[in-house]
């Protein structure tokens, strides 16, 4: 397959990103009668099971920076973050009418209660609040989680009108193993030569994975890596940062661009963790439910919505990211009014302070308009890191 230019791939992703009608997902659904689409919110759902049911998992990540929210504000007080109100706006204005079911992972009380709003307002849709365990022992949290996965499987079987076999799930696990592998390769590539894979491009590439069928997304990442390697770009004198935001509500694309423009290469981040939540390949033989459960319990990423059993381990995922990606510092960008991100942040900060790792904190909403203060803050941070490391 001949290499496409980077620009073309990025434009394609940008088109998906900007399209709040989800045309690509609609096309997939319309291509065959009886197809079903399951929307899911951040941070993690086992997409393998949806895939095995022959359905399309569709990541719903709010309305973005440019959508005018009118009715959504009628559902939420001003002190609640923006993603639920723009998500409601999407639904009320018919942009999710083709979505057959919605999954709300257990990440915070706002998203949890959004599942109830869905139950009340969209009675004809499949609604699944997806509770993940906060106990990580096989015989306790594992049993609970395996049963939750089975309940999910049964729910989707009912919705789809067909059984989901273990073989199908194992096949889907293999498909997602490959996808995660390529996601990690993109991240590795960016960490090695961040000038060749700007953060905004990587972000858009991952966003495309929220909408496209997983197989297409995997191919897209392969194409991108080939094209990006073939088009070296000038290296700039930027510092290297890990971007942490417990990203449920998404940062405006301009924010990501602004950070890099201001002199910070983003060499790791925790946006769209669903694409690399499971840290190791999941076995593709045996009981797929147990395998997925074990992967969650023992080999999954750390995020504010997950309890850390050992005090000493708190923040270890972040510290490992800094080490592995060679980051000079951390930028915390929390969504305004986000309980998980904002309550977790002081503990993360304490870990960094103990190790003398520089960091800055900022807040945003998905529709934040001003980037000037962010550019200034990030620019100062980059300068101070450069001064600090050269002294």
């Amino acid at each position, binding site marked *: 397959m001949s290499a496409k230019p980077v620009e073309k791939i990025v434009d394609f992703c940008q088109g998906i990103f900007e399209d709040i009608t989800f045309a690509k997902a609609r096309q997939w659904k319309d291509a065959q009668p009886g197809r079903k689409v399951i929307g899911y919110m951040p941070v993690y759902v086992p997409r393998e099971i949806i895939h095995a049911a022959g359905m399309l998992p569709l990541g719903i990540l709010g309305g973005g920076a440019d959508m005018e929210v009118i009715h959504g504000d009628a559902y*939420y007080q001003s002190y609640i973050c923006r993603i639920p109100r723009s998500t409601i706006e999407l639904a009320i204005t018919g942009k999710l009418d083709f979505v057959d079911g919605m999954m709300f992972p257990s990440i915070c009380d*706002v998203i949890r209660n959004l599942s*109830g709003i869905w139950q009340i307002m969209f009675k004809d849709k499949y609604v*699944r609040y997806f509770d993940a365990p906060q106990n990580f022992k096989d015989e*306790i949290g594992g049993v609970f989680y395996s049963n939750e996965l089975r*309940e999910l499987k049964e729910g989707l079987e009912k919705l789809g009108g067909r059984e989901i076999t273990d073989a199908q799930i194992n096949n889907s696990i293999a498909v997602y193993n490959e996808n995660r592998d390529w996601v990690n390769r993109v991240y590795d590539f960016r960490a090695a030569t961040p000038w060749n894979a700007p953060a905004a491009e990587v972000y858009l590439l991952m966003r495309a994975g929220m909408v496209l069928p997983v197989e297409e997304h995997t191919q897209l990442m392969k194409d991108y890596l080939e094209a990006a390697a073939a088009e070296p770009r000038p290296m700039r004198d930027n510092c290297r940062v890990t971007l942490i935001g417990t990203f449920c509500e998404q940062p405006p694309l301009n924010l990501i661009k602004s950070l890099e423009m201001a002199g910070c290469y983003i060499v790791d981040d925790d946006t769209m963790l669903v694409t690399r939540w499971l840290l190791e390949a999941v076995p593709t033989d045996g009981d797929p439910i147990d395998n997925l459960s074990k992967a969650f319990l023992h080999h999954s990423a750390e995020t504010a919505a997950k309890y850390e059993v050992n*005090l000493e381990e708190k923040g270890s995922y972040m510290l490992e990211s800094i080490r592995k990606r060679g980051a000079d510092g951390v930028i915390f960008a929390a969504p305004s009014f986000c309980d998980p991100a*904002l309550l977790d942040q*002081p503990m993360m900060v304490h870990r960094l302070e103990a190790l003398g790792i520089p960091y800055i904190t900022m*807040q945003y909403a998905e529709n934040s308009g001003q980037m000037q203060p962010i550019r200034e803050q990030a620019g100062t941070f980059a300068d101070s890191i450069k001064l600090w490391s050269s002294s």
Partner: protein
Amino acid sequence: MNNSNQDVIKSNSQLLQKEMISRNYDRITSGQFKVSSTFVPGNLNELLMCFDIANNLPEINAIQNAMRKKSGDFITEAERSGHSEDVCTYVKADIGMMEKGNIAPNGKPFPDPDMLLLSYTGCFTFLKWFELLREQYKCPTVMLHVPYAADGKVTKNMRDYIVTQLKEEVIPTMEKISGIKFDIDRLREYLRKSAQAENDLVWMLEQSKHKPSPIDCYFGGVYYMGPIFTAFRGTDEAIVYYKLLREEIQQRIDLGLCAQTPEGDMSEEKYRLVVEGPPNWTSFREFWKMFYEMGAVVVASSYTKVGGVYDYDNFRHDPDHPLESLADYCLGVYTNRNLPTRVDMLARNVKEYEADGLLINSIKSCNSFSAGQLVMMREIEKLTGKPGAFIETDLVDPRYFSAANVKNRLESYFQMIDQKRRAGGSATVAV
């Protein structure tokens, strides 16, 4: 030092409760008992009692500090040390108190807890709160994950998960800390006592069906529910308290009295409300006064179910199924129930208690309560045909109580009810 003014009228049950609370603080600060911190919703008081562990509830401490006008400084202190203005003020009031010497309401310093019982029940913030405290105290922390009753029912998987956690995690940790072996018969005995007090509690809740209502089930209710939701469920003291309360309320009914307020009995009951959401604590008395001054009494509220729901599906602690009943208690906590259930509960309250409507006090700190309340209001209006109203305050942050604003909305609401009543009686109000 005390918030209660000289002119506050207190009944015998209130005096008894005050004594009970101060006795518990003395127990916590005495240094003679192991101390566990835990949360009000779904708290496992009977289980802690099995190990002679004193029960310290940070939420109650935050409330106490708010009513003593101290929470504002504590919150500022926590924000100075890096906590966001956007997050829960219970947490910040607690952390600020810690940073300012950790003094209990009885004037003695709180001991460092021997364990943190992280009962993760109906509130995400609990999880982070105790991770933050653990960082400070570095004491054993045990997670009890209570799954959310997302489909309005308790599944076997949920109950089994909790029971296993109790057996494998919670009880062993308590045994280790206290040095006391778990005795299930001791637990059964406490649960038997819980159920006895719970019967009287439910009787109390239902008396506001009377017209006039002898009690206020929100402002007054927070006092009435105190012992059952804190360190007294399962004790003889709680049984005595609820018996006394029952006698007092019965007497009020016999005399045909309106609800009791800090300034005596209400002279007239003009409006009957159902209230959703916690109260504001920093201006509790001022807030309450806005209601009784206008003749409004709260006949039912979701906040009196915050520790556990007893009336809706008739839950009682069950000595014959001790661990399972603890699991069901946790699962049934109000904020652990999905929105359709909360809507049903409140709509039934409006109808069964013959209320004029639903008032929502939306709390900035508490997304578990607040996210979705506007949808709930519309649904309940639809189901009952009664008007709803919406006000916004905070739990313990004095910066978020705007008296003029709240009063304006309440007045408008009450007058709207008036106007509707008049329109119902005569033909039209205007040409």
